[in-house]
């Protein structure tokens, strides 16, 4: 330890030690290879924060403890899917249809509350567990035995944007790192030719909290999600200007020579070397990303399974193609894929925000969600990918058991809603946590979303209390100062 090291934070001291070790033998380019050691040696297990080498930010890093899941697929339904029309069966609500909710709030998020309203779809028992699931989602319902439901989640906000922030970043405010950023910061990636964290926006548009859902917050920018979809390719993958292939190659190799000459005059400067390496990585991505978004190699039966061949419903076909893309990314070792279903606020037209005409709009949304998502989970399972992949289905909050006054839809309800998990490390067929008999509030095994995120990190081998980043005076975490792993859903 050098004399000035006591001035540094814990993280700074670790970095310094590592750098000193490395710099003994470092020469310009050679240091890149050497520094890749940094990523591999499991420093994570012994300190609060992972050590990132800027020339190899996505080098795989060991988790805190053996992981149950290597990759995560997050299926994010924007706009707040009603738990009462999907997974949380409330026969009492059928009985009390049209009656006022005793002791219920007179005013909810959007205005005066109306009377209780029965689930808008019929429910039926499914599979071996015999769990009641709605007819709204017949394909997903067939998966019931494989899923682990948490019916008792709560959010800190009843407004979409802050609540999406809360689900994705653990804070209602703007500007905190997303789950995907935390995950790739902790673990790097197994594929160096693709972004470590990919976000696939819905064909109808971006979700309400938009880039916050995949932003890096104050983590290094390299850990932000890269958004692209089957329809909208990664930006700047190809030259925007009219240049020939020869001109493009000439510019690249001239740049390479300029940078190498410059490095020769500035030997040992890691920052310069890292920038040279970043152009090499970019060149690899230029080859690998078009290859992965090209779905023409998928056989017809796969397109049919997902509904990607649907000619009468372009949105469904588009979402289905995104589902296939998600599988291809997971297959190639991308650490975390975030797949959106639903876009921004639009009076419930483009997402699950069914305030006014819930049934009418959910008929449309369910058709888009159901078959492709179910096919994705099945396809992952058939290919054995669920051995290593955790699949998360989530939404920012739930909906009220009453209709809004004068409307045929439900208002925001952050007090008890359902998400599910399946795949690596998950106990199938579990239903954990309970809402009251009308589905108004979680009453048993209540879990703030902190717990949900702590559980996801746990499955990835990460202790949510130890994955930290020092920012503005605080060792920040995904789970703030909260969070308990929900052990009841673990295999």
């Amino acid at each position, binding site marked *: 330890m050098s004399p000035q090291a006591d001035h540094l934070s814990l993280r700074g001291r670790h970095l310094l030690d590592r750098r000193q070790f490395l710099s003994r033998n470092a020469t310009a380019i050679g240091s890149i290879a050497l520094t890749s050691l940094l990523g591999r040696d499991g420093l994570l297990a012994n300190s609060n924060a992972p050590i990132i080498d800027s020339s190899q930010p996505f080098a795989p890093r060991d988790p805190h403890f053996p992981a149950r899941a290597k990759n995560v697929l997050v299926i994010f339904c924007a706009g707040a899917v009603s738990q009462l029309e999907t997974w949380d069966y409330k026969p009492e609500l059928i009985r009390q249809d049209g009656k006022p909710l005793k002791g219920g709030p007179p005013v909810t998020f959007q205005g005066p509350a109306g009377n209780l309203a029965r689930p808008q779809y019929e429910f039926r028992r499914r599979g071996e567990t015999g769990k009641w699931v709605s007819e709204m989602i017949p394909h997903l319902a067939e998966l019931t035995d494989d899923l682990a439901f948490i019916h008792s989640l709560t959010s800190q906000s009843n407004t979409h944007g802050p609540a999406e922030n809360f689900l994705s970043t653990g804070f209602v405010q703007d500007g905190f790192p997303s789950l995907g950023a935390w995950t790739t910061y902790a673990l790097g990636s197994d594929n160096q030719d693709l972004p470590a964290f990919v976000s696939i926006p819905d064909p109808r548009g971006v979700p309400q909290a938009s*880039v916050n859902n995949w932003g890096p917050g104050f983590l290094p920018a390299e850990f932000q999600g890269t958004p692209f979809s089957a329809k909208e390719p990664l930006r700047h993958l190809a030259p925007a200007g009219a240049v020939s292939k020869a001109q493009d190659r000439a510019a690249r190799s001239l740049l390479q020579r300029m940078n190498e000459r410059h490095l020769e005059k500035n030997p040992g400067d890691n920052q310069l070397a890292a920038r040279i390496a970043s152009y090499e990585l970019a060149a690899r991505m230029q080859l690998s990303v078009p290859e992965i978004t090209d779905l023409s190699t998928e056989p017809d039966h796969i397109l049919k399974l997902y509904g990607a061949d649907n000619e009468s419903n372009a949105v469904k076909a588009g979402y289905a193609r995104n589902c296939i893309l998600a599988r291809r990314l997971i297959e190639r070792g991308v650490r975390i894929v975030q797949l959106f279903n639903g876009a921004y606020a639009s009076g419930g037209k483009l997402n699950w925000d069914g305030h006014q005409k819930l049934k009418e709009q959910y008929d449309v949304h369910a058709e888009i969600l159901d078959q492709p998502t179910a096919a994705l989970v099945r396809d992952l399972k058939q290919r054995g990918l669920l051995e290593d992949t955790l699949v998360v289905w989530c939404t920012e909050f739930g909906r009220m058991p009453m209709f809004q006054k004068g409307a045929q839809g439900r208002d925001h309800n952050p007090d008890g809603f359902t998400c599910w998990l399946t795949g690596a490390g998950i106990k199938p067929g579990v239903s954990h946590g309970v809402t009251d008999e009308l589905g108004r509030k979680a009453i048993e095994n209540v879990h703030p979303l902190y717990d949900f995120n702590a559980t996801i990190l746990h499955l990835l081998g990460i202790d949510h209390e130890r994955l930290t980043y020092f920012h*503005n005076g605080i060792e920040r975490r995904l789970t703030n100062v909260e969070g308990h792993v929900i052990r009841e859903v673990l295999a």
Partner: protein
Amino acid sequence: MAGLIASSFVALATAEEKVDFVREVRPILEANCYQCHGEDKQKSGLRLDVKEAAFRGGSGHAPDIIPGKSAESPLIRFIRGDDGADLRMPKDAKPLTPGEIATLTRWIEQGAPWPDGVDRIQLADKRDHWSFQPVSHPEPPATRRTDWARAEIDRFILAKLESAGLEPSPETDRLTWLRRVTFDLTGLPPTPEEVAGFLEDRAEGAHERVVDRLLDSPRYGERWAQHWLDVVRYADTHGFEVNTERPFAWPYRDYVIRSFNDDVPWDRFIREQIAGDSVGKTEATGFLVTAAALLPGQIGKDDASKRLARQDELGEIVINTGEAFLGLSIGCARCHDHKFDPISTRDYYSLQAFFAGVKYGDRPIENPKVEAIVADLNARLAPLESELFRLVLPAGSGHTRAPVSARGNLERFAPISATAVRFTIQATISDNLREPFIDEFEVFDTEGRNVALDAKSTKVSGGRGKENLNNGIYGNADCWRSNEKGRGWIEMEFDRPHRIEQVRWGRDRTGQYGDRLAEKYTLEIRSGSGEWKTAADSSDRAAFDPDRAKAALFQPEDLAPVSRSRASEILARRKPILDELEQYAGGRQLVFAALSDAPEPMHLLNRGDPEQPKDEVEPATPAFLDPVQLPGDAGDLERRRALAGWIADPENPLTARVIVNRIWQWHFGMGLVETANDFGHAGTKPTHPELLDWLAGEFIRSGWSVKHLQRLIVLSATYRQDHRIDPAAMEVDAGSRLLWRFPSRRLEAEAIRDSMLAVSGRLNLKTGGRGFDLFKSRGGLSGFPPIESFQDDGRRRMIYAHKIRMEREIVFGAFDCPDAGQSLPRRRQSTTPIQALNLFNSQFTFDESAALAERARSEIGTPIESQVEHIYQLALGRAPDLSEKTDAVQVVAEHGLETLCRAVFNSNEFLFLP
């Protein structure tokens, strides 16, 4: 009942014997409570192993021990489970035995005697921390080497280097220093003329002359204001889900730029940003409201949501003030006492009380000049518009007219003598979901006079906010509103007939709002004879087009085809006037700033929850510094002025230290204190504490002059060092924290974009005003389609871009551009393949490469060698050496000059502050 029994039992026991804390009480606490409320963990902020902390209590129920009153002491209630099994302590563990409960109960009844000096742990005094001590006035230390230092700064740096066995690097060459200081102070590279001028100026004081020139340049404030805007998380949208435009944030941005350029003393800069509205600097208080905020329509209709939103608003002001000026993370104390620093929850809410009268909103800037400007602009606009009007096709002429626009629609008809007009809306855009709004309804006679404007002679009926239809004020805040969704009507009756020929109506002429727009409508006119006739309707308008939802009046298809070339000439002359007018709302320049209101009562909140208010608090600064306290009836301005005075006091140990550290960091990439926003216990200690104090003292002595400090820094020997890596020194200090070299670093996003434009010769140096667009949307829900190719205003310096919160610009955003979500004390230096793709492949790079190539051709002529040399001079400030030149010439001969330019813009040499 339980309480009664316990009390009577206690009464008996008390008579018998005194409970001994060490022998009887502590073992019970230790066995049952310390695991969660001891040294390692303090759940709910409660610890029971230290006397002082135990009596202070936790965050939820303090005090937990009320001497003499066991039945009321939360500690006893919890261990007995009085408040339900959920709250029985210890949680999820074996309950205390009745005997143990009785012992603790008796102990409290006896006055909870806890002898001093028995605790095994002494709580560290949180005030005992370097940054809370007064600024010392150290003499620069003696050094072994005496021929290196140019200034006091250097002696502090050299002394540390010597004690670590390091030597400073040699002085860098003149070109490198010039590029360094020019990028550093202005964010742009030196021009070839500036390079040549400096290299030739061998007279004494050449460096000083460069520094004076740079500090005097308006480009300086544009560069340094950005540093401050990062800290205060400035943006031109409101953030959160809807992220609507905040159209009048920019006067604060311009204020910051001006303040840096004018070298406004830092203490005054602080006072103005906190309470500038008391000294005619209203725009400075934009500082208080830079955070993301929910607009009224985005907050839940229930009272709890409203209280939470208000608390969030106030919280952001406290956080900003604490971090920006004091380097303290005060925000932690909103929910619990600060874990490390001497800031209690009470301190937090007492501090928040200074802002209890502040609301977020637009307010006019006192500026008579603006009114004159607007009058002049309108006078220039009027003849153009009246000529345009003559070219407009009347309604029902058989041509398809432009689709309706929120910004204004014109209905022209044959002149008619009218006693009344009626406007009936049959449908609005977006499926009639909302009630239609109209901000102004204008009826012009053949003289071009708006006859509706005379409220005395015009009777308006229909809908709500009728008076807004003809009061001459545009904008959403001053709208007529229908009573029905998707429909509505207006009637205006005049007290005498007018010969009219056009009606203009719009939803929001200022261009902010595009919803609630009437799409299907009929305009009828009552003639002198009393007969109603349809003068215009929507049937000949093109279908609504979202891309043109806010198009200005006089769209191409509204104009007679024969006169279109004349029209486009007038339109081109009109556009700059409209753009300029847009900056002023109805003749007043607004700023999004602190609205000053009567302070509302402020309560301490349990766990930060507005639904759990506790004691009322009065404005008071934290107790650890010479505190300021005000009575609860103090007014808003008095409160803010008092707080500003306390912060800007030269005796405040944090204020000067925090800013001189930031300035140091903005020059060297890293501050003497690494954590520029946190000078508390969780932050890092300064590498050079004496230097930090010397700088703070010098700063105050100079009258808080930022430029004075900067002159000292950039002329120092420390700053003039070479940047090259010395492997031996790397072993001792890899991060160059001791400054054995100048820590070179990649330019920031803004500096890269600005420099590319400067080098290509296309940088637009227009200063101030409304931001230019990086996206096709200035705010809102439906995403931000980017602009890829930029004209005119789009080539201004990036600090003048309309900054969308949380949305990064598509090329340069990836270069660690802040998103304005949270305060950013220091730009990171990430290196990613996305950056490489953006800079190598974007339209922007291709555009500027072409422009640079064209510049070289036009300024130099044809010989490739000379073109190559010129490009090197422009971009890198030097001539290529022989091998570079041979290489480049060959590439250019084969692949064109643009190929060289593209490579140069991507090169490390171009992109680094050397």
